[in-house]
């Protein structure tokens, strides 16, 4: 075991980690937009749209992310849409994250008992006011833990983008490995970097959760 040869590749590692973070944040934001739109569509009255969203969710939740990335990267060029690796991975991961967020956000909205909505209406609140003051705060609070843990899974899942040569952290690992031949050491370091990033996000989300939603501390 010899970690010394890796030392001079720290800049590449930092660059890779930054690309990983970019990919995660971009996919998460796009995925959340899809999630909110999808949840609204699922609650809506248009049956065809509901079926389309259902089909999208099932399709993306029941096939591997890796295959989805391959399809975007290798198949779309057949239709004249050739995306670079990073963009292709971002599209695939956004759709993947989106499929999970729809269900999480819908469950968050559904967690509010109907009687509370009716109580709000009895007080003479408008539809928007009911949504803004009665449904949204507890729905956000209920959806928050699931969204954040899905975010961490997304962070770890971006490693799959290396398979279409997007130059994120895991791809950097392959590059360093090919230069140093220290395979085990490289992947040990990479795992440690992912671990550090994931734990930082978990801690950050816990703090945000405690301050924003005044969560009681665990016993």
């Amino acid at each position, binding site marked *: *075991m010899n970690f010394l040869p890796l030392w001079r590749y720290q800049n590449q590692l930092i660059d890779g980690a930054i690309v990983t973070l970019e990919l995660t944040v971009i996919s998460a934001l796009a995925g959340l937009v899809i999630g909110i739109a999808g949840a609204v569509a699922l609650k809506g009255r248009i049956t065809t749209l509901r079926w389309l969203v259902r089909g999208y969710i*099932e*399709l993306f*939740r*029941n*096939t*591997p*992310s*890796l*295959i*989805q990335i*391959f*399809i975007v990267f*290798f*198949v779309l060029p*057949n239709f004249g849409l050739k995306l670079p690796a990073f963009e292709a991975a971002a599209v695939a991961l956004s759709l993947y994250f989106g499929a999970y967020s729809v269900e999480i956000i819908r469950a968050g909205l559904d967690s509010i008992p109907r009687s509370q909505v009716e109580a709000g209406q009895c007080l003479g609140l408008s539809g928007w006011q009911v949504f803004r003051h009665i449904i949204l705060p507890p729905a956000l609070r209920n959806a928050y833990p699931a969204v954040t843990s899905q975010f*961490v899974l997304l962070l*770890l*899942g971006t*490693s*799959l983008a*290396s*398979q279409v040569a997007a130059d994120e952290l*895991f791809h950097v*690992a392959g590059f360093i490995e090919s230069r140093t031949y220290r*395979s*085990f050491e490289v*992947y*040990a370091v*990479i*795992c440690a970097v*992912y*671990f550090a990033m*994931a*734990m930082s996000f*978990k801690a950050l989300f816990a703090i945000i959760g405690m301050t924003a939603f005044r969560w009681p501390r665990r016993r």
Partner: protein
Amino acid sequence: MRSFSLIDFVSLFTALRWTVALVVLALAFGAPLALGLAAGRISRFAGLRWAMAACIQVIQSVPLLGLLFFFYFGMPVFLGIQVPALVAVTVAYTLYTAAFLGEIWRGGLEAVKQAQWEAGACLGLSAWQQFRHIIAPQALRLSLPPTVGFLVQLIKGTSLASILGFVELARAGQVVSAATFQPLLTYALVAAIYFALCLPLTLWSRSLEARLDGSR
């Protein structure tokens, strides 16, 4: 370059053997370990609880791809001998399964109220009897839907073994796609096979969840 033929179709289906084999191996070794982790997480000894929690945190905070590579290249380093790639991959999937199932089952165990243990104790049951006859059946019922849900994650996760050269479904797809230059048809087919494997499990998990909720 050749056209997509029956042989390609057959090769995709035969590659399913490895997908299934990896799932079976991961469950066979991972599930007992998960039970141990879950038991450790609710044990009376704080040290044990912390140690188990730390193990689970580490495994859950590293990409599955990272785990696979870590053990693939690490097993010879740890053991000082060359081991078959299958052993290394099995270790990685086992730990992955153990960490996630361990947390799911711990959730199930903790969801059963403390008073149930006490009621068992009042009836003069030993700790093992309380667990065996009162807690475990209820915990099992509660954790069955997420356990089935995790199975879907595991099936999808076996696609990563392709990167280490296992010719399972995803890898067979890459090979066929490269040989026929038909990525659209090939990957659509691969996705359809995964979908056909996972959708029934997802639907089952959801119906279990609904049934559980209705009985409350």
